[in-house]
């Protein structure tokens, strides 16, 4: 019987914190230099942000003068004073509960829809597709049930950002599916029309499309008929996003094996049944990352509406820079940091949620 020697412990430099450091940060001279450069970058970024946003920031004040001193950082009183404008624009103050109520209705519908474990998805979807849009329109616009009418010129800030983004998404999704199916159709005229629309829209920048909405669309309409400016922007944003979405969905459709189409045909399903029950559920699942990326792009693009005179979060921030009362060297920076945080939270949230769904679907595919 040979006695087993006790297992030797690895050298101390290979395990624990030191081992991790050696492996991940100082594995070679180049890496060591890179690490030092990296530490320097992080240090200057963190200390710069900390000084600007906290140590040298102005916390109290009533005008830009309070934020004007040598080495002044962020001008937080500016955000505090303008916060309600950033959220609601010029929406009349006594009516703002209507905006808040719309947000509550949206959250009530959206949160259970987004958590896969919560039951009752069918009712939830019906609520979000049928009930919520009607309720939101009646609440925000008013003019019915004793609610005073609020013209869209008064809407602004985060409200406009969310309205443009959600209407854009809701409009672009079905249209994008139709365009993608049209592009793969066997009917030549349908195919040509889809291809022409998709390529034309994808070839030009959103700004020209919005310019078109503001100068050309009025010419298209018969005399005396006008469309609300926000409505025009909504239509154009939805059409624009639909073209991009159509290409993403087409990628998914192309990835579905031909056998699936043939099996559906063999079962005698109609075109709508074949697409709705067999092909699209699989195709859309494949391209969820692409769809979410398009939606993130659309959310960021909502900021462009300020060019045609509609004030979303960024537009309102930009508008308030010119307020003489709040003139200071750091007003602009503070405003952009605030607007940036708002956009970033939404976009980053969307991308993380898409990762979560992707992983979940990948798990369900594993056998």
């Amino acid at each position, binding site marked *: 019987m040979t006695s087993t020697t006790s297992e030797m412990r690895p050298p101390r430099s290979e395990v624990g914190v030191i081992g991790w450091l050696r492996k991940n940060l100082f594995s070679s001279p180049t890496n060591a230099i890179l690490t030092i450069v990296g530490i320097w970058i992080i240090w200057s970024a963190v200390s710069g942000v900390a000084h600007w946003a906290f140590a040298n920031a102005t916390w109290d004040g009533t005008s830009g003068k309070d934020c004007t001193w040598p080495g002044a950082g962020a001008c937080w009183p500016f955000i505090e004073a303008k916060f309600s404008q950033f959220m609601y624009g010029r929406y009349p103050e006594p009516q703002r509960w209507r905006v808040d109520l719309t947000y509550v209705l949206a959250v009530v519908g959206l949160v259970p829809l987004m958590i896969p474990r919560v039951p009752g998805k069918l009712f939830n979807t019906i609520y979000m597709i049928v009930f919520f849009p009607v309720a939101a329109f009646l609440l925000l616009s008013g003019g019915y049930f004793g609610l005073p009418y609020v013209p869209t010129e008064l809407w602004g800030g985060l409200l406009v950002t969310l309205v443009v983004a959600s209407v854009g998404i809701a409009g672009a999704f079905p249209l994008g599916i139709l365009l993608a199916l049209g592009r793969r159709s066997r*009917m030549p005229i349908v195919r040509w029309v889809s291809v022409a629309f998709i390529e034309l829209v994808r070839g030009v920048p959103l700004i020209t499309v919005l*310019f078109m909405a503001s100068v050309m669309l009025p*010419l298209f309409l018969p005399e005396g008929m006008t469309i609300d400016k926000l409505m025009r922007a909504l239509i154009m944003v939805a059409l624009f996003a639909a073209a991009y979405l159509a290409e993403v969905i087409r990628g998914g459709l192309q990835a579905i094996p031909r056998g699936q189409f043939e099996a559906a045909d063999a079962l005698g399903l109609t075109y709508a049944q074949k697409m709705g029950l067999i092909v699209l559920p699989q195709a859309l699942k494949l391209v969820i990352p692409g769809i979410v990326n398009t939606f993130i792009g659309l959310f960021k693009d909502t900021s462009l509406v300020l*060019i045609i005179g509609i004030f979303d979060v960024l537009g309102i921030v930009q508008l308030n820079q010119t307020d003489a009362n709040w003139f200071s060297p750091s007003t602009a920076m503070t405003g952009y940091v605030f607007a940036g945080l708002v956009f970033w939270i939404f976009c980053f949230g969307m991308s993380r949620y898409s990762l979560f769904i992707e992983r979940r679907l990948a798990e369900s595919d594993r056998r």
Partner: protein
Amino acid sequence: MTATTNRPGPGPISPPAKPNLLYRPEFRQAVYQILLAACLIFAFWTIASNVSDNLARQNIASGFGFWNRTAGFDISQSLIAYSNQSTYGQAFWAGLLNTLLVAAIGIVFATILGFLVGIGRLSSNWLIARICGAYVEILRNLPLLLQLFFWYFAVLKNLPGPRQSFSLPLGASLNVRGLYLPAPVPGPGFRAVLIALAIGVVASFAVAIWAKRRQRETGERFPVLWTTLALILLLPGAVYIALGQPLSFEYPALRGFNFQGGIAIQPELMALVVGLSTYTASFIAEIVRAGIAGVPRGQREAANAVGLSKGLTMRLVILPQALRIIIPPLTSQYLNLAKNSSLAVAIGYPDFVSVFTGTVLNQTGQAVEVILLTMLVFLTISLITSAFMNWFNKHIALVER
């Protein structure tokens, strides 16, 4: 059972009766298409008649007669001779060239930065990978317009005035009016240096092609890199020194209230280039990362096994294969950058959209012609870029046996 009794005994099965016309796919497809075409024609006809009515009522001329009329407005930066006496046609070209300038500079910087960040994200160095990851996650989740505003209004417009401007290396200075760089002034005989440079470039291409052919035939390698460097740097350098250094620099100098001399780069152009290239770089970085991650792991292991260094593995094994995955999405990023350059209108850089679709449209009121031309220009840019990138893609595609 009734079905069988109807049949007249065993025999050849009769072909199924032709279905009702309504149930025949060809007929239904024809009907759908005719309906769609009719709807479209009707919509176009209505729009066209509305447009002509509206134009007639507002007394707006139609056609491209405005092209040769005097524009009467100034453009703050132009690559061609332009004054407010120039025509709308010249304004069109001035704006278009400004857009192409921004797109070209932006693409170069975005590609360099994007590749660096993308490769950095896959670095074995934990810290560098995290920093590059943070860069991508922050920049691509913020609207480009916000970033342009940030660079223009919050950074460049907050720089000190000309008297307190920052001095940069090589005699450049940076202040609220822009970036001032020394301008090269060619002396007599400088053309010879340029000719030498051109000869060097052409000769190095020839050497590269010859060396590649020789290597394919005989397997012998030729030090292409060093020959090329010598041809491109030493040949013009020798001519330059032989002619007595016929190149001087004109340095920008503070005279009065502003800098004179040198090359002045407007803050609008700077903000646009910085904003566009850092934003697009975050997308390019993701594409590069996905491309490199898409190369099978065995390739890297094989390169390690034959003893290639890390740099050579990247340059000779990974990148050439990754490029095939990278090129198609990279093309669409370049196109996005060119299209996004139209956001210049928001910070006052005289790009094509700002000059033509903005000012010219406002002055002439000819919305239909101007918007159509704008779309045509962008479609042309898109088509040319994708044609070039398709050619490049084909050029580097894997040649399989």
